[in-house]
């Protein structure tokens, strides 16, 4: 039993990076902008966060640096695709490659740096409950933040006027524009938010999760986060579920290996991807649902004059 609790605990931790990044990307996609640069954003934020953590020793300033780096790069992306109307996919890809190169270049001197061990976090009292405490209440605050973020986004998107406006910008920017909403500015804010969350996820990875810096350390998590939003049909709760599912299957296959289960390691490495896609595709297979949830103007440029 205790092992299952430990596995659950590791699962939430492993899913958090994906969850935060994917929930951020969900917001800019709901506003109609696809940012394929997520991987590059996360890498730049990872080195920014790591460098700041090394110099200040303060994780929270490091997270802020990660958020800042992610938001800044996302803003550059936003100016290009929203105001200059460059192709979102090409610009995002370029940003992804640029971010990987820039982070490696800036990070050369940090590869050998190390962070002092982090203090273990534990929720008072609750963490002492057997099993449940280990599984749920001995996590870094950002693990809980990911859950709160999900609820926050659900509330924002579906219960507030601002959320409605954001969604309308993603569905039909022309209508929103006709109603007098500043479509470009709204999209820009959404893109910056998405970048900021990718940045937070990147900084969490390099400061808390691994904790070290090496080039390319995000290792595809940005792409997985992008895929998660689509497979979860832009539903925040499903994005969170998908992220934990991915983290969970990753940890289960490693745990199986350590139990000596004889399955080829290549097959086991594939399982997180397969399991996540299959489950999300199954729960999201209703075409009407997809049509309702997919932002109709996703990836399309908006020309206010036209």
């Amino acid at each position, binding site marked *: 039993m205790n*092992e299952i609790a*430990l*596995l659950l605990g*590791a699962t939430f931790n*492993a899913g958090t990076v994906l969850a935060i990044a994917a929930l951020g990307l969900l917001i800019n996609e709901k506003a109609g902008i696809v940012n394929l640069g997520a991987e590059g954003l996360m890498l730049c934020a990872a080195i920014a966060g790591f460098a700041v953590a090394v110099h200040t020793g303060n994780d929270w300033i490091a997270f802020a640096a990660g958020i800042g780096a992610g938001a800044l790069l996302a803003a550059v992306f936003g100016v290009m695709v929203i105001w200059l109307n460059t192709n979102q996919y090409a610009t995002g890809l*370029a940003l992804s*490659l*640029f971010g*990987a*190169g*820039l982070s*490696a*270049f800036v990070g*050369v*001197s*940090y*590869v*050998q740096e*190390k962070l002092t*061990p*982090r203090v273990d976090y534990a929720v008072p009292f609750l963490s002492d409950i057997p099993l449940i405490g280990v599984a749920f209440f001995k996590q870094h605050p950002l693990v809980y933040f990911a859950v709160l973020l999900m609820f926050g986004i659900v509330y924002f998107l579906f219960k507030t006027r601002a959320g409605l406006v954001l969604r309308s910008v993603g569905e039909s920017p022309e209508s929103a524009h006709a109603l007098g909403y500043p479509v470009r500015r709204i999209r820009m804010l959404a893109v910056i938010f998405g970048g900021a969350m990718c940045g937070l996820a990147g900084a969490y*990875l390099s400061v808390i*999760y*691994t*904790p*070290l810096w*090496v*080039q390319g*350390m995000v*290792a595809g*998590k940005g792409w997985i986060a992008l895929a998660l939003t689509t497979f979860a049909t832009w539903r925040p709760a499903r994005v969170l579920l998908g992220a934990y599912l991915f983290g969970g299957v*990753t*940890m289960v296959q*490693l*745990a199986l*290996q*350590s*139990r*000596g*289960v*004889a399955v*080829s*390691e*290549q097959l086991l*490495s594939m399982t997180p991807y397969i399991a996540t896609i299959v489950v999300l595709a199954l729960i999201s297979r209703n075409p009407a649902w997809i049509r309702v949830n997919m932002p109709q103007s996703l990836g399309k440029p908006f020309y206010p004059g036209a």
Partner: protein
Amino acid sequence: MNSKRTLLAAGLSAAVLATLVGCGKKEEPKKEAAAPAPAAAPAKPDPLKIAFAYVGPVGDGGWTFAHDNGRKAVEKEFGDKVKTSFVENVPESADAERVMRDLASQGNKLIFGTTFGYMEPMLKVAGDNKGIKFEHATGYKSAENLRTYDSRTYEGAYLAGVIAGKMTKSNTLGVVGSIPIPEVIRNINSYTMGAQSVNPKIKTKVVWVGEWFNPAKETEAATALINGGADVLLQNTDSKAVLQTAEKMGKRAFGWDSDMTAYGPKAHLGSAVINWGPYYIKATREALEGKWATGATWWGVKEGAIDMVNVAEDVPADIKAKVDELKAGLKSGSFHPWTGPIVGQDGKEVLAKGVVADDKFLGGVKFYVKGVEGKVPGDK
């Protein structure tokens, strides 16, 4: 500074390109610019240009870091008789061949490639550049101007095992494996046998990550091992993530390839290090004196290539003494970790009592010894 300027000059395209080839291509500052001035002293021969191609970043704190220390040892030994440079983050792909050709065209006369995956590219480039000597680490293909060298990392793994066998409380050891090739399987077995030599109850759990360098995955694998009951970890991967994870979770682990004490001061039990210096110095001297000839070299504790350093203070004195004794035995040749009887997982004897495994046997280890749990991946 040179690399910085080139990068800036090439601008954004360089940044994109850098990602593709693995950024951080760094070379020692070229001194050609200053060459015309000292032309007044023509008696001095041109330095021997030596280049190193690394698979990871110099700052990995492990495998590549150890190679770069070897390069520095060559510089220290020969001073201005040699001029060394290196390229880091060269992937084990078509890029390796391009980098090798580039190094050859820059006038390097001795080129070291430090990962298994450079084997075919080096063979190809060596065939086209007969005047240049190539040295390939951990490979098995050679040519008249390409030779191989390796270190007996299993000796370090065995010494780590001796310490681990005493220090474990759960009698369960864990290994984070990279790719299931004989070298790595041999190290898992050696670690287990070393531990069993002081504690017969030892079991070893193994998790493969399928990569040499993926810190996040290594962290997750180490977490899975610890959650599964392992309390002393060893890794045959290139980063320090496993040691850091052990530090975080209050367990013990070893440094691998380089001294990793600083990355997990509480968890660190010792570092099984590779010292490439002696071999690099020997190879350079042979090249300088024109005595270089093709062949294969496999050095261990005896030649000073492998060592167990910075053993933790809380390791009992008798175990420390035993490690020293084994090291002395390895040096004199009186001790070999792979001496029979060695029993495979299925209980069958793979090496009879008193028989010492030869290098051919060691090169083909594809089985787990008794005490290792699970199956070798791909084994039917």
